[in-house]
């Protein structure tokens, strides 16, 4: 249930995610070393265009990547097809994007 378009979208989103995952893990390890508080973390992310772009892009790539991956599983293991499969793919992608985008907005510009 993957054509060239979906295959490319999944590979490109993986390409974007790879460095972002490493950056994310590095930041997590760094953040807990010195015992940063929530207020200190928010102090660095609030109003930061860099962290907005970093995690905004991350959320976008994850939404595309996971929606296509789950689409394949839903087709091969659950037997979803046609319109139901398309709806599932879009709902997963948009759902993940909404959750992620809310979180990014909350720690940067909200």
């Amino acid at each position, binding site marked *: 249930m993957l054509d*060239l378009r979906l295959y490319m979208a999944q590979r490109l989103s993986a390409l974007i995610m790879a460095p972002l995952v490493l950056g994310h893990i590095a930041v997590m390890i760094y953040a807990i070393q010195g015992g940063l508080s929530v207020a200190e973390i928010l102090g660095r992310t609030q109003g930061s265009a860099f962290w907005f772009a970093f995690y905004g892009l991350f959320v976008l790539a994850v939404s595309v990547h996971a929606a296509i991956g789950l689409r394949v599983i839903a087709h091969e*293991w659950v037997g979803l097809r046609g319109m139901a499969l398309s709806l599932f793919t879009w709902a997963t992608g948009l759902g993940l994007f909404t959750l992620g985008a809310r979180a990014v907005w909350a720690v940067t510009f909200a």
Partner: protein
Amino acid sequence: MSKPEQTLDVTVWRGTAAGGELETHKVPAHDNQTVLDVVSWIQHHSDPTLTYRFACRVGMCGSCAMMVNGIPRWTCRTHVGKVVDEGKLTIEPLRNLPVIKDLAADMDAFFDKWVAAEGLHHPTQSRQDPIEPIDATTPARKQANAGIECINCAVCYAACDTVAGNPEYLGPAALQRAWTLLNDTRDGARATILDAVSGAGGCHNCHSMGSCTQYCPNELDPMSAIAGVKRETVRHALLRRKDA
């Protein structure tokens, strides 16, 4: 002095597309016998109504493939001693294909997909043209040569878990054929083949699990061929966009 006769417990699948069941036969064991010998013994001596398919008996025709203890194999080239499990053999029709009767699978879907993947020759010359010399040493020709020994036995197709989960998927044999033609300088339908393998059931569905390569009796490598087809579709799509 004769040895006491050893027997095998051979369970064969009996039935049609409407359904069926497993049936066990006692078959004399010999030092040298193939799984096809065992199936033939059952038909000759135990149940003449057993249906199965074979032709050459030497691993050339690709018609006797069946599931043997859960693994797709050419029955004519599979020694019983290699696969028997505590004196037991279970023989079933090829997986991922409908059954015609008993051990004979309906190969139509397999061959239809071969054609759907444009796995047929698209000539660039007519019989009036002189024979084109082919350089056997080019990298493309070596890739093409790697796949041409496929005899359409459908062992890879039966082994493929992606086909099992996604019946539209073209499968390893058809895609390997597409890769062979893409690398053959005598084939003139590159774009047609790439379009044919890029649809909803195309090469991009392959998860590279490798059962095709693992079980191919000819030791071909369809998994790598499919990876080649994927790379070529991406390259073609990017170049086409640039040309547009």
